[in-house]
């Protein structure tokens, strides 16, 4: 209540309402509700056996009704007065039963089970694609770390201010173009008849073009490129706050550059690197466009399978289970990363 009053005092009632309601809307409507729905979806499936038995019962009853109609028609060729009331009743009852069954079959029963998950565990192809997706995302994260740290350090600590600004613009501008176009640019570079092969061929380094896009190489390159900046930003931000005196003090005490990085700069940048690693891993594991464009038939990404469950297979429940598994692994990754690097996320919120 006090917080609310302070918020109103500092920002006015309209801003305060916006500040509270927008995040609340975002949290509840965009995150919590769909996730809960998806989790619910993932735990049930339509009972197809029950459905089949109902459909069988409907067709049997339909036949009986046709039969009854025929008998009623025999009794009353003129069809002017009422026939045998017993038959008439029987007919009415059948009709009611059929309509009830039909309405039941329209909404097949939801059976709660772990079937959707056990299906993933039991499907060898899907399982291996799932594991490969996790493994490749880890690989992308590691490659991004290796690229990101020196770049961030250079920008934050070494580059003169003007140069750093120019380099930063150079890094950001490509990201103004959307991910799909950027990925297509990589397709042009990496494809069988692409620029890189053309170049390597023209300088005589290769005689046969290299199949970058056949395996995972294209996907890894494309993804690292697509997401590395999300790691550079938080790392750069933290390295900017590293007091240059600390580096000089370490140097003065005899430390070489490797020790300065290992003992001073990297520990300082660790929360940034961790945030960047988490972001990159999440984005990579959840990427759809990059593997769809740069991946060959041998490098299916788990997201593509989820997509096909939802939109090709029409089985939302199975798709939801798959998506939830991916989310669970990503959350596990965040927790493990935080544990390994000793980053306290509460502490992190204080730093920014």
């Amino acid at each position, binding site marked *: 209540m006090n917080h609310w009053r302070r918020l109103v005092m500092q920002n006015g009632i309209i801003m305060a309402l916006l500040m509270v309601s927008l995040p609340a809307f975002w949290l509840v409507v965009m995150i919590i509700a769909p996730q809960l729905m998806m989790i619910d979806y993932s735990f049930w499936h339509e009972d197809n056996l029950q459905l089949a038995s109902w459909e069988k019962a409907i067709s049997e009853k339909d036949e009986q009704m046709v039969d009854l109609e025929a008998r009623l028609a025999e009794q009353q060729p003129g069809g002017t007065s009422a026939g045998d009331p017993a038959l008439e009743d029987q007919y009415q009852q059948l009709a009611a039963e059929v309509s009830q069954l039909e309405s039941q079959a329209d909404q097949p029963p939801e059976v709660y089970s772990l079937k959707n998950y056990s299906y993933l565990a039991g499907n060898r192809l899907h399982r291996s694609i799932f594991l490969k997706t996790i493994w490749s995302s880890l690989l992308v994260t590691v490659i991004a770390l290796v690229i990101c740290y020196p770049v961030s350090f250079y920008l934050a600590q070494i580059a003169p201010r003007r140069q750093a600004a120019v380099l930063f613009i150079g890094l950001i501008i490509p990201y103004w173009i959307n991910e799909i176009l950027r990925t297509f640019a990589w397709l042009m570079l990496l494809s069988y008849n692409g620029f890189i092969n053309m170049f390597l061929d023209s300088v005589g380094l290769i005689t046969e073009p290299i199949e970058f896009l056949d395996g995972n190489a294209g996907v890894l390159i494309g993804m690292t490129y697509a997401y590395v900046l999300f790691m550079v930003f938080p790392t750069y931000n933290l390295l900017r706050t590293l007091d240059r005196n600390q580096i000089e*003090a370490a140097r003065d005490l*005899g430390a070489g550059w490797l020790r300065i990085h290992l003992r001073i700069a990297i520990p300082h940048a660790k929360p940034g690197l961790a945030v960047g690693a988490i972001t990159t891993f999440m984005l990579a594991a959840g990427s759809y466009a990059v593997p769809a464009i740069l991946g060959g038939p041998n490098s299916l990404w788990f997201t593509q399978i989820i997509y096909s469950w939802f939109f090709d297979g029409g089985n939302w429940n199975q798709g939801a289970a798959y998506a939830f598994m991916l989310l669970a692994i990503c959350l596990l990754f965040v927790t493990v990363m935080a544990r390994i690097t000793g980053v306290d996320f509460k502490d992190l919120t204080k730093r920014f």
Partner: protein
Amino acid sequence: MPARNVELVHISKTYGSLTAVDDLNMSIGEKGFYSFLGPSGCGKTTLLRIIAGFVEPTAGKVLIGGKDMAGIPPNQRPTAMIFQNLALFPLMRVWENVAFAFEVRGVTKQRRRILADDLLNRVSLEGVGDKFPHELSGGQRQRVAIARALAVEPDVLLLDEPLSALDLKLRQRMISELRSIQKQTEVTFIYITHDQGEALAMSDQVAVMNAGQIQQIGSPQEIYNQPQTAFVATFVGENNYFRGTIKNVSDNQVVLATPAGDLKGYFGSSEMSQGDEAWLFVRPERCTLGTMENPENSFEAPIVQLDFDGPSQICSLQVEGASIQVIYPQGMHSYHVGDRVQVSFRTKDALIIPPGKTAHD
């Protein structure tokens, strides 16, 4: 015993069109406490960083123990630096901070801990080894920084205004502690400060710097009592000064014609002749108020302000063309603002120096 003297030979450092250090020469002896005193931007920090090896001089050379330091990186010089903000490593425990130099040299962890605790004892910081720097008080952090620097067993310890962040009481205590650490370790201390109180209290020798040049080198007493330039006279301590023309020179005693009348004094380091423009400096605590029998120098002036300063009273008077301050013990006089009083001082307390840049310019 390693030689611990530092020779600065024609050192210059320019940044573009800006000259930070301007053809500076100085010889710093062994086992002493040396201070560079000057206003911010006078080039003293640049000079310290040149000695440490973080900055290459544009011209000139640094000799430490007779050895030319050109091209020798900071970690291979027999110096250690204490930074203005101390630059303790915040993510390491105190003992790890102190033991960093041992870690670099590959000393085992067990031994490092022993050596670190030993150093911490030397700066009277027992039992804080396992804390983090942010858990310590300002004074304790200060001592950790000293212990960390002493770990490399430097011949010369360079201190870049490390006391500036401390409050007055703590600063006074640290001044005497630094002094005793210097005596005890026999390391040459080179101390940079803009605070004349620190410089005068701690140093064996003080070099007053302005605009990249050394104005005067001397003991604190010399600096205070016999300033050689107008800058030193006005930067170190408070000083009253009268502008005038030399009327008469005899036996070193000089008569200066000033707007406040003829005043007598002695030449400082540079002698001038009749007709030259000169300034007469006299310290506020050397002036007396009130009517005196046969004063050597005196004039009358109205009091414009009285300031309470604890043990003493600061009295400001308006003299033609100058503002004069007189300091006297609390309760000695009971003047009021507006009173016209006689100000007098002894000829031996008045110093006559050529005009120049003052610290207030």
